[in-house]
């Protein structure tokens, strides 16, 4: 099978480089091993919790019924609550001996004093909303309920262009996919501006900007995981983008071993052999390259979003700065011009309205000399 290299027989993930990434393991066998080690009750995604009677406890622990009943009282969570009155969890009590609380109190006071605009709070709310918008959702149609024992993969998909200002914090999206989903399902869910790009110069007929975006014209793409290129071959016009790379690697024996190809649509994530924490690649539009890191794999939990149709589920995205129109400074740029006799800089960005008002007369005739290209802002997906 493609992707099974060497140590794929081992399904218990362990570190290859401590704290950084694991050894190669097979995702499906890993899931199967977990299921072997758990009871049905651990896996169940149903909310109904069976009544936990003393008899069950006694059976599980091999103790007497009386002991079981006693345990229930002794180990109740009420044992940890203070006997005195209810407290407000938002307020830190004055007399606490806990160091954590003392530090937190100080931090809160400092925040109160120094805060001018509560901007961090806005960002944080956004992140939180993204993370939790789908938690606990269940499908209307029970057929779409995620099965118990399904695997969840957390993927970080990095943006292709890394600006200087992102040198330290590389922007990425975080996506949850299911083990049983095909690679193509992830491929279709990745949003990238290069898919929306329109080619060509349209200064003389701005209304005829083509309807076809790059996504419809150039459908080839591949994922690279552990020595295998998974090419998207769903459409007849798809090309094998990995061929040049493989030929390059083979032509001079560059020490990359035996690179293989496979069809993206034939593989689910369960079929893959991967390392957690290791950077892989997604490439589309010929040369738009996204680093992909699988940060986590786990079994589905009843509190997760259980609607299969919502996956791949985006749970984090970077808020990208948008380029505004040079004229109104308000709307996101839709056009970019070069060698523009009417613009103060080159290149210059315009929103649709300002672009037309400045560059064309009432009859739609072109004024001045310029080259105009449709522009898609990276902030489009914000």
């Amino acid at each position, binding site marked *: 099978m493609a992707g099974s290299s060497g140590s794929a027989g081992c399904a*218990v*993930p*362990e570190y290859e480089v401590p*704290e*950084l*990434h*694991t050894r190669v*393991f097979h995702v499906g066998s*890993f899931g199967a091993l*977990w299921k072997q*080690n758990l009871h049905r*009750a*651990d896996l169940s995604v149903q909310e109904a*919790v069976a009544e*936990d009677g003393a008899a069950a406890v006694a059976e599980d*622990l*091999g*103790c007497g019924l009386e002991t079981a009943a006693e*345990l*229930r009282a002794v*180990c109740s*969570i009420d*044992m*940890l*609550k*203070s006997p005195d009155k209810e*407290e407000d*969890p*938002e307020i*830190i*009590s004055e007399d606490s*001996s*806990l*160091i*954590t*609380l003392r*530090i*937190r109190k100080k*931090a*809160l006071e400092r925040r109160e004093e120094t805060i001018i605009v509560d901007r961090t709070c806005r960002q*944080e*709310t956004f992140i*939180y909303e993204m*993370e*939790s918008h789908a*938690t*606990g959702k269940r499908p209307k149609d029970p057929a779409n309920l995620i099965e118990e024992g399904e695997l969840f993969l*957390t993927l*970080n998909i990095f943006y292709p262009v890394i600006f200087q200002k992102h040198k330290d914090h590389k922007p990425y999206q975080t996506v949850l996919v299911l083990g049983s989903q095909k690679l193509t399902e992830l491929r279709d869910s990745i949003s990238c501006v290069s898919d929306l790009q329109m080619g060509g110069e349209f200064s003389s007929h701005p209304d005829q900007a083509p309807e076809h975006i790059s996504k419809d014209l150039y459908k080839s793409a591949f994922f690279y995981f552990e020595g295998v290129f998974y090419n998207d071959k769903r459409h007849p016009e798809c090309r094998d983008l990995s061929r040049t790379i493989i030929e390059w690697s083979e032509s001079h024996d560059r020490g990359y071993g035996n690179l293989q190809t496979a069809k993206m649509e034939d593989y689910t994530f369960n079929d893959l052999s991967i390392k*957690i*924490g*290791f950077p892989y690649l997604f490439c589309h539009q010929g040369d738009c390259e996204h680093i992909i*890191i699988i*940060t*986590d*794999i*786990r*079994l589905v*939990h009843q*509190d997760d979003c259980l609607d299969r149709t919502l996956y791949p589920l985006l749970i984090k995205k970077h808020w990208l700065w948008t380029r505004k129109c040079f004229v109104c400074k308000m709307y996101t740029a839709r056009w970019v011009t070069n060698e523009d006799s009417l613009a103060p800089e080159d290149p210059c960005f315009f929103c649709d309205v300002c672009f037309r008002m400045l560059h064309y007369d009432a009859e739609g005739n072109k004024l001045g000399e310029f080259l105009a290209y449709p522009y898609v802002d990276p902030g489009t997906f914000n």
Partner: protein
Amino acid sequence: MSCVSGLQTDCEALLSSFQETDNVRFEVFAGLWRDRRFHTIFHGQTRPLEKNKFTQKALDLAWRYFLPPYTFQIRVGALYLLYGLYSTQLCKPKQKIRVALKEWLEIQRFQLDLINAQHYDAAYIFRKLRLDKAFHFTAMPRLLSFRTKKKIRETQLKEEFKELSNRVTRLITSDVLEEMMNVHDHYQKMKCLISIDKSQPDKALNLIKDEFVINIKNAILEYQQWQQNKMKSSSKAKDSEEMTDRKEGGTSQDSEGSERANALAKIKYKSYNAVAMASKSRRHRQVKLESSESGSDQGKVKSPRCKRSRERSQLTQKGNSLETKDRIQAIKKEVVTRNRRMPVITEEENSSEEDLPRPKRKRTR
């Protein structure tokens, strides 16, 4: 000090007072928890994201004490702590405890031990957590995102909670001793068979001491005793240090670094001498053990616990031999009273150059 390191201090304080009770009952733990009003640890957080992150950190921290190499008592305490933290958290839905596949096998063994030893309260609580679906069954303990080195910050956990385990005890178990005894008996018999006098082997074949198995056993016992004493004395010393630490308010930072390094080098030199004086059969083991311990302390500069544990391992070195102890105690007092807030240089000979610039980095924190 960040909120998380405060959290660690609080959890460790709770666990060590639980350890002091020499008891694994949940009632005892619950009493300690109530005394501290430990559930209030989640109070005062208004932002949901902050709340989630903090809870996740707390669970992760407690979880690590639940795994080996910590002592049975600490592990049970950590289980109760997990139960308490999980049940009293204020997040909705509740944050889950991450358990990796590799750890799970270990945990199941622990649960069996609990049941076999009839610690039903602990076993019941683990079972309850499992029924409450408090776990996320994961591949690895934490999310891995190919972080750069500088972002990885290892928090160092309390050494005192660890099981007294080392290469010596791992190497020589009772099984191994028994096996050795059998082999030796067999060997002795074989020798008798090929000798002229069938009841006793030839003198020429007498190449090994007859009672060597017993000798090994005695050496091991002696070693374990010594190690226990060492642990005790070091924790005591640490406590007294913390007292002085508090008195001075912990304000004095670095300075006079080289002076202190010299003083410590002296101590180090003396304690090495003490090691050399130990019995011949134990000498190589001791030295080896010390250097490997200190090796693991290396490179974890930013950890808040680091400095203390450094000091501590320095002190454990001192506890090596009873003869030198008093002398060293005197030297230590000198050092201790002069300045507390300095990172201490580890035992390794070549580490002194690397260690000197550390105070600077500490200051920036």
